[in-house]
């Protein structure tokens, strides 16, 4: 358990260490377009919240369902980025982001057993949406391949680490072999995850309020 906690802390620290690098443009000047692509989503609250919500939901459903997102999520980001770059900037819609946050939060709070196929479709669609939103900061002189590579790597690393940390938090019963054999949602860890889902839904509601008010 201590070993798991240690690994978890390391992974969390690595993830959080990227957050303070707030200005993607400064990063682009200093470290180039790959790192600009990798850090750009962490400068946007919508990306941070929605990626976190999706990772928590997928992780809470167990390894067998969540592991598909390791590949699908970065692919969705790439598809969305390509679409956004090709058809022009697709302005991110705060209302849609807020609704997605509410839905993901409620699913997590309710402990819904989302089927694998539906989870994959949701994750791909969300990633595509956010990938397109990230295309908004592609400047004419941005190396698009490097930016896309950075974004996909960030998506892969973030979703993989969040899902694994969620699984580790839930404990051994969330292993794939025991995935559906016993409902762990009633122990304190499951309750904590569901409470977190409630918070995400609440943040989504506030975002929706702000979006409709402005």
């Amino acid at each position, binding site marked *: 358990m201590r070993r798991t906690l240690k690994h978890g802390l*390391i992974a969390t620290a690595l993830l959080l260490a990227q957050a303070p690098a707030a200005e993607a443009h400064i990063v682009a*000047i200093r470290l180039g377009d790959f790192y600009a692509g990798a850090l750009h989503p962490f400068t946007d609250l919508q990306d941070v919240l929605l990626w976190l919500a999706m990772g928590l939901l997928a992780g809470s459903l167990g390894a067998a369902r969540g592991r598909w997102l390791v590949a699908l999520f970065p692919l969705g980001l790439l598809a969305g980025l390509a679409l956004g770059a090709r058809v022009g900037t697709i302005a991110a819609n705060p209302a849609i982001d807020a609704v997605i946050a509410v839905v993901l939060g409620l699913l997590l709070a309710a402990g819904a057993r989302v089927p694998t196929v539906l989870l994959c479709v949701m994750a791909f669609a969300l990633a595509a949406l956010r990938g397109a939103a990230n295309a908004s900061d592609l400047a004419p002189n941005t190396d698009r391949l*490097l930016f896309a590579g950075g974004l996909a790597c960030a998506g892969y690393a973030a979703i993989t680490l969040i899902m694994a940390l969620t699984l580790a938090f839930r404990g051994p019963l969330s292993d794939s072999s025991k995935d559906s054999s016993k409902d762990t949602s009633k122990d304190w860890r499951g309750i904590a995850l569901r409470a977190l889902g409630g918070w995400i839904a609440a943040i989504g509601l506030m975002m929706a309020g702000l979006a409709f008010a402005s």
Partner: protein
Amino acid sequence: MIDLRYLRIALLLVTALILPRALFAHEATLGVLEFREVRPGAFIGLWTMEPTVGADRVDLKVPPHCFLRLPELNCGEKGLVGQITIGNLGADMSAALIKIIPLKGEPRSYTISTANPVVTVLGTDAPTIDTWLELAKTYINYGIDHILLGADHLLFVLGLIWIVNGGWRLVKTITAFTVGHSASLAATAFGLIGVPERPLNACIALSIVFVGVEIVKQQRGEIGWTARYPWAVAVTFGLVHGIGFASALAGLGLERRLLPPALLFFNVGVEIGQLAFVLLVLALIWAHRRLDAVLPRWGEALPAYAIGSVAMFWFIGRLLIVLST
């Protein structure tokens, strides 16, 4: 062991798709500006190495009490003391060396880079504690940037992690790599050894080809040199990579008296960047284990060939550069 192979496949494939762009990752775009004091507080500035962006387009900003219209710089009685920066650092000019030759005392050099866009020019009382702090800030950042942008160094480290497969052996191997590159970095910086940069870059690419071949051997069940003596391979190729690190420092034209601390801080920066990369890879390996996320067996051989292909691409490209000069 088996459950990790597909993580490595995924990591290396992603890396292999992106890394060919980094062929010229270490080609710096530098400029060198020399200010020579002709009377107290008055300087004549001259670009001894003009940046590729063009000297006229450099947005040089000097302390507020100074008046600059190149080639003239007048700072009055207060002298040239304070902050100097360049407003338009970027891809066209990643760093500039400012050399100041005063009427009295030793010439001084300051490096303005994207990692450290503002330098503080110190008075004739330097070196002081501020000098050391300034050096630490500049060169730790420069070391971190250099390793993070050095895709070839990171790919080599990734190959070592692949072959050694975690645990104390990995700690020893990475330590051996650190010892190797630190030793050759210091030896090169102090002029004890000297290797031309371009052939060296080709050799660095070859070292990654070697690691790729070792991975293929391991997959075939053969025990290669790296699997048998990982620390020896790491320290040997660490020596080669360290000379490459030194070439980055050499381009900045440091004062000799400031070289030891600058070298130390640069190396600390390189280690910080390398450690962050190793920890990230280890965290992802742990996450894949936790998720039991593995790919089909048919793709097992792809990454080793991808790593070898990318490295060969670099090698051929760098060899062509050597032959064309």
